[in-house]
């Protein structure tokens, strides 16, 4: 991957973090923590990895993205707006009456959303179905799914994990946003998941790891995944909940807390943005 591109995506991620803090502050609702932890994964997908065309968002050959941890919707919306799926002005309508930008991704309202999500634990199955449909139709697209680490406590994830191996879904590439924190506390406090890599590996998956805030590592992991035939890949991406804002780092309270004016200013100072900028 060329260095300029890495720098460009890093710059974009920082801008998205600034925009996200301002946006969630302005509407006083939404989930900052999990949006910040997934910034590099989602942005690398939309800026480097995935094939799509915003003029033709339903092109049958496009790569698909399933934000299974649907509460990170704001980070996805920032990427879609940046890539011209809808006007940036729409962002300020997030979660408001009449907006196409729902609190959780809605495929029938927002251009560029491939699957509606929100109830946790369904995105892996849906992504698997999309991937298998592509294979039956002899299309070469990839289906990317982003799972939360709290989300994998849902039993349906493991039903899907078995099926993806049985049906040899090698065009299914899954990221796990491993930030270690969920709504009520850390994963360790709420429901320790043990060795996640081993769990998926024992289910028959190709398991890769990366630093989920390192764009180059993310892109390289996907390249490796694409070379793996006949089994699905999960890339366990080590991340930090609230990444980029020191007082949000690893704090479960920032899963879905409204951002006050004081906190907004502090966060923007760290990120190098200004409230009116």
């Amino acid at each position, binding site marked *: 991957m060329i260095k300029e591109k890495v720098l460009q995506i890093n710059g974009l991620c920082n801008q998205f973090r600034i925009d996200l803090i301002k946006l969630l502050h302005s509407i006083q609702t939404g989930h900052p923590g999990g949006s910040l932890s997934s910034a590099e994964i989602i942005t690398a997908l939309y800026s480097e990895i995935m094939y799509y065309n915003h003029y033709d968002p339903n092109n*049958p050959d496009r790569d*698909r993205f399933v934000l299974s941890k649907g509460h990170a919707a704001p980070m996805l919306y920032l990427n879609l707006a940046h890539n011209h799926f809808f006007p940036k002005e729409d962002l300020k309508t997030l979660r408001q009456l009449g907006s196409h930008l729902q609190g959780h991704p*809605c*495929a*029938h309202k927002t251009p560029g959303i*491939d*699957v*509606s999500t*929100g*109830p946790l*634990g*369904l995105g892996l*199955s*849906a*992504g*698997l*179905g*999309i*991937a*298998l*449909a*592509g294979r*039956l*139709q002899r299309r070469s697209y990839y289906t990317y799914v982003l799972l939360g680490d709290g989300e994998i406590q849902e*039993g*349906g994830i493991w*039903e*899907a994990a*078995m*099926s993806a191996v*049985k*049906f040899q879904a090698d065009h299914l590439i899954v990221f796990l946003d491993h930030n270690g924190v969920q709504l009520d506390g850390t994963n360790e406090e709420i429901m320790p998941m043990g060795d996640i890599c081993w769990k998926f590996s024992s289910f028959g998956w190709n398991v890769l790891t990366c630093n989920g805030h390192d764009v180059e590592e993310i892109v390289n992991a996907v390249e490796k995944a694409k070379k793996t035939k006949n089994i699905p890949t999960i890339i366990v991406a080590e991340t930090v909940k609230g990444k980029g804002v020191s007082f949000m780092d690893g704090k479960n309270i920032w899963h879905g807390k409204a951002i006050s004016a004081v906190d907004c200013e502090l966060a923007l100072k760290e990120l190098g943005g200004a409230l009116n900028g």
Partner: protein
Amino acid sequence: MGEMIAIRDAYGDALQKLGAVNSDVVVLEADAGSSSKSILFSKKYPERYFNVGIAELNMTAMAAGFALGKMIPFVNTFAAFMTTRASDPIGSLIAYDNLNVKLCGTYSGLSDSYDGASHNSISDLAYVTSLPNMTVISVCDAVETEKAVFAAARWEGPVYLRLSRAPAEVIFDWDYQFVIGKGVKLLKGEDATIIATGYMVQKSMIAAEMLKKQGIYTTVVDLHTFKPIDRDLIVACAKETGCMVVAEEHSVHGGLGSTVAKVVTEEYPVPMEFVGINQFAESGDYEALLHKYHLDADEITRAVRKAISRKR
């Protein structure tokens, strides 16, 4: 009396026939293919058959993915498990995004009789009927089953197709024009209307015969589609006969009775009686169970006489 054919056998045959003419159809199964008879499809089209094991939630969410990938998934398992274990993806994915998924719940009502109440499905219709975008169909015989399978495949959007395990007398011939959303008047009489669905259609025909011998003439309607509901037919029947009985192999709460009563109270209130189930059943012979839990022709005739007595 017409030929007896099990609805599940008719369904399995129909699905296999559909597979031959529509290559977009994929079939998902949760390890009940020998029961649902989706296994017949797997023999002919193994590449389009996905048995996910005992994992109804995953199966149904996968079906949403297949529909998003422009295939037409037919999802199979016991109605009891489909609408409970998989209620989340049925609501949040399939109905919400109006996805082209066909949910085929088999062994509905008490038809899985020896397995007992745990395998009965008496609340499935209450859930699926409450979902926006969902089309709900419940069939009564082998002909209607095959017609409904093909109609569901042609229909754009999610369909819940309610199927029975049990043998049922064939009452339609192959000229039958099955139209989603349009009920069928099987008998015409001026004293009362019986609106029925599933196997209660056959029971209602027997009840009508019994009533006729007592000089009571009933209209009998096979209302195979719950949603969209055939308002015009229901209102016309209410006007023509002045009272109504609804019979279904489902809880009296939230099923066909509730749906028809809503139309009647909104448009043309008449006395109504409801034949359905109000408690958990038990293991046993199917016909004996239906009798014990008041889902038979005797009960329908009682309800009809009561409805008539309430006419002013």
